[in-house]
C-alpha cells in the first residue's frame, strides 16, 4: 500500500478539481440537496434555553456569584480577617470590621464581624482564590448557583452584604437537612 492511499483518520477525501459539467453548473441538484438538509433542521429540537425562565443546569463546581455563608445556627461565619481581600488578585474585595456587641451572638459567630463587605463584580475574575483563602469557611462561589447579571450602571456591580450573605431561608433549609 502506498502512502498516498493511507487514511489514519478514515476521513481522507480525494480533492477533485474537475470542471463542472452543464448540469452541475446549474447548481439545481446541489441546491436541492442543501434544501433537504435545512428542511430537516426545521423539525429538529431547538437548542435555545429561554434564559430568565429556564436556567441551564450548572456543574456542581461552577463558580458563580459569591455567597457569604451562615453556619447551622444561622450566624454569619465571616470574621472580617481580610484574608480574602489579601488573596484576591483583582483587588475586588473591601470590608470594614466591627466588634460584636453583647446580644448579637445569634447573628455573628465570631467576636469580630464584617460590618460592610463589598465585592466589585466588575473587577472580580471568579478565580475562587478568596474561597481558598478563607479560614472560616465563610465565602463560597459554588453555593449560590447564581450568575452575576448585567446592569446598566457601574454602581450596581458593587455587591454589598445585602446581596452576598446567604438568605435566611437557605440557612434554615440547611439546618433541616443537617
Amino acid at each position: 500500500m502506498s502512502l498516498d492511499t493511507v487514511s489514519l483518520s478514515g476521513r481522507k477525501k480525494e480533492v477533485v478539481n474537475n470542471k463542472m459539467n452543464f448540469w452541475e453548473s446549474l447548481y439545481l441538484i446541489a441546491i436541492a440537496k442543501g434544501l433537504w438538509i435545512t428542511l430537516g433542521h426545521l423539525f429538529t429540537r431547538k437548542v435555545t434555553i429561554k434564559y430568565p425562565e429556564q436556567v441551564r443546569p450548572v456543574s456542581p463546581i461552577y463558580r458563580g456569584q459569591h455567597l457569604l455563608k451562615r453556619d447551622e445556627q444561622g450566624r454569619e461565619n465571616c470574621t472580617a480577617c481580610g484574608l480574602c481581600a489579601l488573596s484576591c488578585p483583582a483587588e475586588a474585595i473591601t470590608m470594614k470590621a466591627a466588634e460584636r456587641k453583647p446580644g448579637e451572638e445569634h447573628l455573628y459567630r465570631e467576636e469580630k464581624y464584617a460590618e460592610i463587605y463589598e465585592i466589585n463584580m466588575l473587577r472580580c475574575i471568579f478565580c475562587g482564590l478568596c474561597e481558598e483563602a478563607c479560614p472560616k469557611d465563610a465565602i463560597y462561589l459554588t453555593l449560590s448557583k447564581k450568575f452575576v447579571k448585567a446592569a446598566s450602571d457601574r454602581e450596581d456591580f458593587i455587591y454589598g452584604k445585602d446581596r452576598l450573605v446567604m438568605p435566611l431561608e437557605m440557612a434554615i433549609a440547611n439546618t433541616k437537612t443537617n
Partner: protein
Amino acid sequence: MDQAIIIEKGIVIVAVFAITMLMAMYATLAERKIAAWLQDRIGPNRAGFGGILQPLADGLKLFSKEEFMPDTPNKFLFLVGPAISMSMALMTSAVIPWGDKLIVGGREVILQATDINAALLYVFAVLSVGVYGIMIGGWASNNKYSLMSAMRAASQMISYEVAMGLSVIALIMMSGTLSLKEIALQQQGMNWNVFYQPLGFIIFLVCSFAETNRTPFDLAECEAELIGGYHTEYSSMRMGFYLFAEYASMFISSAILAVLYFGAYNYPGMEWMAQNVGVNVANGIGIGVLFLKIFFFIFFYMWVRWTIPRFRYDQLMHLGWKILIPLAIVNIIITGVVILLFQ
C-alpha cells in the same frame, strides 16, 4: 352604477393595499422565525405571544431613530429613492387576480383591482422600474459602496430580465393571452401551468430571486464587501422603506408565481363546490388557496435564503447569460414544436 363601481374598486384596492402591507410586515417576522428554526433556534419571542408584536416593535424603533442625511448634492434623489422602491413594489399588486368573482347583493365583485389585457407586460414594466429605486438611492448617497451596489443591482436586473421574459414567452405561446385573469381561468382544477412548463417555471423562479434581490442573488446588499449596499447611508424609516419594499416585492412575486404557474385560486373540485355549495363559498376558498400558495413561495424564498450562500459576481453573470437564457430559448422551441404537433 358608475358610483357603485368606484366604491367597489375602491374597497378592493384598499383591501389589497392593506393586505400587502400586512404581509410585508409579517414577512419580516416570518423571515426571522424561519431563519431561527433552520438554525435550531427559536427566534424572537419576547414581544407579544410568541413574538407576534415584533414587527410593530421594529417599526416603532425605526420611526424613533434619527434621520441622517449624508452631505450629498442630490438631496431630492436621496429622498425619492426609497419611495420609488416602495411604490413600484406595491403597484404590481393592481393586476393580480386575488380570486374569482364574489356575488354581493346581486352584484358580481371581481377580486382584482384592474384587469388590463396586457397585464403581464405591465408586471414586467413595473418590476424593471423597481430597480430605479435602488439605483437612484445608491447614486444619491454619494458613497462608493452604495454606488457599487447600485451598479450591481442594475446589471443583475438587466441580465435576469431577459431570461425571465423569455421563459414567460413560452407560457404566453401556450395560453395565448397576456391577461392574468384569463391565465388564471385557463388553469381550472389541476390544469396548472407548472405541469406543462416545468423548465419555464424553474427559470422564472430563479429569475424572480434575482428580481427581488434575494439570496443567492443579493449581491446588491452583500454586507461582507459593501457594508450595507445601496442603503448604507440610509437610516430611520427611509431604510425601513427599502427593507419593507423588499418584503412587499417578495410577496408580490410569490403571488405572480402562484398565478402564472401554480393555478392561481384554482383547486380541484372548485366547480363542484360552486354548483353544490355556492359561488361565494367556492371562490372564498379559492382566495384562501391562493394565499396558501403565496405563503408557500414566501417560505420557499426564505428557505433558500437560509440554505445557500450568495453567488460570486462572475457566477451570477455566468448563470444568467450562459445557462438560463439558452435554456429559456430551448424551452420556447420545445413549446413551439409541441404546440404545432398537437394542434
